[in-house]
């Protein structure tokens, strides 16, 4: 058994290997690795004794799950209606330009993942950018620079 498997094993054990807890198990794995490694999904399917394609279907259904490794800083730009009319598109474009990646991608150094979301429930503050769990309201392309710099040590 590899180190990874024992980690995944303990997560599965927490839910008594219940097939009905598949989503919770995947959530915990995602939390642990920041993404869902393919071997861990294969392993979950084997232990829970459910079709691999079912695990794959669930893993690709929810936006909270990712099959690709994510960066240390996860930046979500709100593209909801309220943020959109207040210019979130410009903010996104600036982030794409600065990070040299497109929405949905991760920088080569594994530092940043840039993603879009549709409304984070803080419309009054729009345009909103969520960086890890932190909300930044009233974003403008100019503020992008300082948002990224505040992360650099």
């Amino acid at each position: 058994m590899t180190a990874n498997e024992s980690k995944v094993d303990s997560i599965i054990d927490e839910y008594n290997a219940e097939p009905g807890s598949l989503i919770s198990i995947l959530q915990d794995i995602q939390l642990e690795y920041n993404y869902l490694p393919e071997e861990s999904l294969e392993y979950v399917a084997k232990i829970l004794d459910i079709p691999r394609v079912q695990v794959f279907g669930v893993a690709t259904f929810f936006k909270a799950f990712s099959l690709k490794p994510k960066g240390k800083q996860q930046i979500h730009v709100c593209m909801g209606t309220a943020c959109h009319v207040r210019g979130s598109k410009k903010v996104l474009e600036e982030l794409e330009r600065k990070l040299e990646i497109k929405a949905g991608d991760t920088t080569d150094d594994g530092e940043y993942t840039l993603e879009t979301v549709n409304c984070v429930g803080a419309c009054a503050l729009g345009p909103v950018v969520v960086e890890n769990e932190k909300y930044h309201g009233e974003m403008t392309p100019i503020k992008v620079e300082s948002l990224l710099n505040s992360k650099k040590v």
Partner: protein
Amino acid sequence: MSQNSQAPRGEMVKIMLNGAEVQADPHWSLLEAIQFYGIDIPTLCHDEGLTPYGVCRLCVVEIGSGDKTKLVASCMHPVWEGLEVRTHSNRVIKTRKTILELLIARCPSSKKLQDMAALLELKEVRFEPLNDDCILCGLCVRMCEEQMGAKAIGFAGRGPERYITTPFDMNSEECRKCGACMYICPVVELRCQGPQAETVLCSGCINTEPVCAPDYGEAMCFMVPCLSCVKGPEDVK
């Protein structure tokens, strides 16, 4: 589900089917009752040997009476005492055609859909053609799981990104290459290369005179739809 599902076998309920009072087994789906009495309504995602799935909505019928009527997918709907059903009301026909339009716009290459369009005399498709090769009916997934016991394929993604695939989009070791998924797929068979092979709607069968007419007059064969005998443009006189 109605409480009738618990009724002992053999006890029938009465339903009003297109104005006629008929008996139905409470264990049937509404579609089964409709088909039992020989009424032909189109279905796509339904197959007798598989669990009903209710996604194509082509089996739509109208239930209820007065101003309390609604459209339901008959393959997923139970029957109960006193249920009123109309399979060909104006509202149903209109809805059925719109649903078919949407399906054809997604996969204009499907022979099954084109044949259905001919039978329903669909005259136009008002939606932008997508030229996709899957309508997400899920027949292949159910076939693979329920009849072949392989569970090799399934849905992935969500919304507009939903698609049929193998685990991790890779050649799947569960698949035995039995071909059952292709056998049941309504899109796999390409439409005939009749008079209008490139258009969204072929309509060959309703717009062209039967090719056999000059030779046999009124004596037509029983191919459905008519003109299924046509293999290529050279066959059309």
